[in-house]
């Protein structure tokens, strides 16, 4: 016992160091994968408020750019509006539409803090659970997909962006329909990779890649990027596909949060699937 106490006294500093290091690393490795509380993220009230003040100051620097983006989007929407179509046939009866039902609702949000240079990049939005944001909702912008809500507080939320290691978003090549998972290797904010596509299929260069809508997070067909090149993975029958993101995450300002109104129905149905025995 005496020896033990002497040991502790001798290595006191080292032991305290190891203890604190353990706490810090536990935070790090648990939070990246499973967010448990909001207090250590930018979704917390204090840091959220500080970042919002900073954004109030700096958001105007990029104003002309984001105005152009909004204008482009407006033009695109205007083209789809009934007023920009000529009515060709007058004789049709009006139908109370029961064929289509709204599945997705969208909430506008502003990115108040973002990075693009780190290994895992998170964006902070200025809306939170009080506005109806929940963990796991999708986020996209007018140019393409952005990420998934990772953590929310009352008035802020943190998005796990496409620029994180394990984003694993369900995506597919639009024309031909091969699907795979979106990954990011941490180097270039303009390029991601798509994994899990078998190399016996042909992938055209500059083919458009969109979300698949599999997990019920995103509607099908939100742009992700374009196929820039395909390489062979050594020892596996898979393509290593490099994508050029359609959104430039370095100047992201305005985004939309997707709410899937039928998510519960889908989850309920899928939870009835038999579980694989060998897993």
């Amino acid at each position, binding site marked *: 016992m005496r020896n033990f106490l002497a040991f502790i006294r001798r290595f006191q500093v080292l032991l305290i160091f190891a203890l604190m290091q353990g706490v810090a690393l536990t935070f790090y490795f648990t939070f990246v994968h499973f967010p448990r509380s909001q207090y250590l993220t*930018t979704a917390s009230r204090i840091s959220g408020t500080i970042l919002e003040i900073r954004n109030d100051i700096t958001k105007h620097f990029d104003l002309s750019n984001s105005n152009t983006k909004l204008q482009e989007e407006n033009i695109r929407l205007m083209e789809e509006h009934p007023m920009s179509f000529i009515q060709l046939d007058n004789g049709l009866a009006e139908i109370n539409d029961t064929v289509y039902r709204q599945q997705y609702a969208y909430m506008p949000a502003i990115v108040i803090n973002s990075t693009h240079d780190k290994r895992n990049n998170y964006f902070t939005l200025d809306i939170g659970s009080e506005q109806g944001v929940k963990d796991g909702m999708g986020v996209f912008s007018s140019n393409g997909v952005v990420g998934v809500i990772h953590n929310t507080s009352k008035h802020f939320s943190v998005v796990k962006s496409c620029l994180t290691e394990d984003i694993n978003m369900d995506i597919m090549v639009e024309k031909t329909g091969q699907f795979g998972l979106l990954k990011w290797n941490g*180097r270039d904010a303009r390029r991601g990779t798509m994994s899990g596509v078998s190399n016996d299929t042909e992938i055209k260069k500059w083919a458009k890649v969109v979300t698949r809508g599999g997990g019920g997070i995103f509607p099908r067909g939100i742009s992700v990027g374009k196929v820039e090149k395909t390489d062979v993975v050594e020892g596996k029958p898979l393509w290593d596909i490099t994508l050029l993101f359609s959104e430039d995450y370095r100047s992201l300002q305005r985004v939309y949060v997707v709410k899937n109104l039928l998510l519960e129905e889908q989850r309920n149905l899928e939870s009835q699937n038999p579980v694989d025995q060998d897993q």
Partner: protein
Amino acid sequence: MNVIVKIGLRFIALLLLQVLVLNQIEIGFGIQLMAYPLFILLLPVEMGVVVQMAIAFVLGILIDAMSNTYGLHASSLLVVAYLRPAIFKLFAPRDGYDPLMETNIFNMGTMWFLKAFGILIAVHHLWFFMLEMFKLNELLYVLQKTALSVPISFLICILLQYLFIRKRVEK
């Protein structure tokens, strides 16, 4: 000025500088600027190492909370606080440290600062990027990030001292 007030102000200033300015500067090539290890260097010499580590942990966690790194900064700053006494011992001047003197670049000389703080900040950055990547096959990229970021962070730390610490007038 009272030492505690001074240290407190420096704490807040470096925290805000890191979160609001340096975190937003993204040059590319994986360069990431971190100037807050300077805070640990400038703590009083005779302060206990456990106290230093506690302060380092708090500062690190606060930076983490505002940049979504969940403990990375805290872990790397702890390493700096832990190594500081050893580094100070290694480069101790012939007649020891004056306990009332702050260990900044003017009091200790450029060479001392270059050696002592250079090692601390290099270890800090290396530890940070290694944990951030956490893959051995990306070691080369980690080294590239460290080699590119350390000189710039170091220059910022020197600049901060020239801007905010008053040079002691030689009698």
